[in-house]
């Protein structure tokens, strides 16, 4: 596997920098700043410090014994990113970008958010590092994730609703890019997934790869061998790439990325880019997109706001074409069933995003042998989704 991306920010034909000229100098500056920081031991030490004492890393690799027994096949390990400070893997990236913002001497950060987990993680580091913070969020998502909206405001961030298009993550990213274009000299845009123009997909992958580095060490310690299979959900694809990346050279390790199947691929109401999409350019990068024949971006659907997006990280597109990672999808219904299953079997309420990965484990594990090992990334906890699931089930919470 060559060193990716190349100097043009390409993963094969995917990736690149499709942005207005106004942003190009900022992207080049960011790339320089990041490459310099990556070589700097002090920067790495700063990240390690905050990951250990603030985020709570390393996160455990937990053997889910009851779930394993219940499914009756492969041994299932959960990489507990849900135990990170703020409740999801998102903070691994925002600590890195927050420290980089300080190095670039910018005072203001902006971000998009879908489920609100990235927004909360950005608002958190903004408070920690003393930065002004504005978060863009689709108004549809603000309704689905009202709790996270309030959390961001508690943390001192301004949350700006985006009322355009589908009023979800896609539109929040567009609006954040417009803000960045306007305030590029003073503002750093903390993108939340392995998306967008180079260097974001590379940089965010690097920041998230701590997940896979830890998991590799932990599974070797626990089992004395590499896992047979890794499973993670794929929205933009940062938790999955973070887990997968340190294992890419291990040819015996299979990897499965799980997209949002929504109401089913055949319904057209989903966010499974690899099932229903084709290559195109959105938000600065060439990658698989859900789009119509004219190149207009389709509206997507998922019960989980964090997976509800028409594009996928460009590096995923490359591994899909190369056959290194297999991509599949779980429907809303399967994800909700997995949400219940993990809650009842293990006492762990997963984020609806992560529940998609659990749903795939439910399909895979029984067909595998008892000595085989699956590592699944439990990318976030489900506290933020409790209200939403109650509403879906018509349970009044009386608050």
């Amino acid at each position, binding site marked *: 596997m060559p060193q990716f991306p190349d100097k*043009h920010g390409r993963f094969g034909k995917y990736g*690149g*920098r*499709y*942005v*207005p*000229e*106004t*942003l*190009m*100098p*900022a992207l080049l500056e960011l790339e320089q700043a990041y490459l310099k920081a990556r070589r700097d031991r002090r920067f790495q030490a700063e990240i390690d410090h905050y990951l250990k004492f603030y985020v709570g890393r390393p996160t455990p690799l937990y053997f889910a014994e009851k779930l394993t027994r219940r499914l009756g096949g492969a041994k299932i390990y959960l990489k507990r990113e849900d135990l990170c400070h703020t409740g999801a893997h998102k903070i691994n990236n925002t600590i890195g970008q927050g420290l980089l913002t300080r190095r670039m001497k910018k005072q203001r950060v902006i971000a998009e958010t879908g489920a609100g987990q990235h927004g909360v993680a950005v608002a958190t580091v903004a408070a920690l590092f003393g930065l002004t913070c504005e978060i863009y969020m689709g108004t549809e998502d603000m309704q689905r994730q009202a709790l996270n909206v309030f959390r961001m405001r508690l943390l001192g961030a301004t949350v700006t609703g985006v009322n*355009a*298009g589908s009023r979800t993550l*896609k*539109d929040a990213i*567009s609006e954040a*890019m*417009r803000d960045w*274009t*306007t*305030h*590029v*000299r003073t503002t750093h845009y903390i993108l939340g997934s392995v998306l967008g123009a180079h260097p974001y997909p590379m940089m965010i992958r690097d920041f998230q790869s701590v997940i896979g580095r830890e998991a590799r060490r932990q599974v070797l310690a626990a089992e004395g061998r590499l896992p047979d299979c890794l499973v993670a959900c794929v929205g933009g694809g940062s938790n999955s790439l973070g887990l997968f990346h340190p294992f890419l050279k291990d040819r015996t390790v299979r990897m499965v990325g799980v997209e949002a199947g929504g109401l089913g691929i055949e319904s057209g109401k989903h966010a499974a880019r690899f099932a229903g999409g084709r290559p*195109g*350019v*959105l*938000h*600065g990068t060439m990658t698989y*997109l859900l*789009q119509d*024949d*004219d*190149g*207009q*971006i389709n509206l997507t659907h998922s019960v989980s706001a964090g997976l509800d997006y028409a594009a996928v990280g460009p590096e995923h597109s490359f591994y899909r074409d190369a056959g290194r990672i297999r991509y599949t999808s779980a429907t809303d219904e399967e994800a909700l069933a997995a949400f219940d299953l993990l809650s009842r079997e293990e006492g762990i309420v997963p984020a609806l995003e992560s529940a998609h990965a659990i749903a795939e484990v439910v399909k895979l594990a029984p067909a595998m042998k008892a000595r085989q090992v699956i590592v699944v990334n439990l990318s976030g906890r489900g506290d933020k989704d409790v209200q939403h699931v109650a509403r879906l089930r018509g349970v009044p919470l009386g608050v």
Partner: protein
Amino acid sequence: MTNRLDSTFERLRANRKKALIAYVMAGDPSLPDTEALVLELERAGADIIELGVPFSDPIADGPVIQKAAERALRSGTSLRRILTAVPALRAKTQIPLVLMAYYNTIYAFGESAFCRQAVEAGVDGLIVPDMPPEEADLLEAAASRAGLRLIFLLAPTSTPARRAAIARRSKGFIYYVSLTGITGAKLADLEEVRRNVEKIRQATETPVAVGFGIATAQDVSQVAAIADGVIVGSAIVRQIGEHQHDPHLPERVGAFVRSLKSAMTHGQVEVRA
């Protein structure tokens, strides 16, 4: 065959005049309306027409043009339909037509096929707001083969090295973005625009047109004194939005453009005196 853009700028230059470049979103509120609008804007004094191609996620555009794109998409407008509609317009006018299209609409169409068919239909130039020169090699080659002028953008944030390279690469004219921001924002610093346009001129003979934030007759007259062309987008599109149900839509918008043109001509007289 000479390109209409080139000959228009040559003619204007010979007469010591500046180009008024009027932007309308194709298909807003419908493609027949667009044809009527283009013809009326030409009568009102527009020298070049920029036709927006609607895109679902226009990251370089402010709310006025976003809404116009939504109206155009609702009326069923696509790049394919626009190219089908251009020949009828071309039969009635020789005004230079420049398409402004986000890259994905062109990529979905196919770059080579698009450039060929655009020129056959009567399009003269192309602006792709989300395609910096780093990503332009394929499209540039296809445009050059077809005889379509690929117009690049320069911004206040462009470094001197980028400015020089892009100024030399841009064909037809150079689109200087007057402000650090999106379309429809407020023009902030005329002095900075003047300085940057002068720097671009040192790198190339290609005409320089200035766009973004130019909304009033006064803006137009001030920018015309600095650049070879003045691009007015959101201000015209806002008029179209307000009068979209008015049976006299073209005349309403035409009156606005006439006022801009008159300020521009008047302004130039002052500058020469």
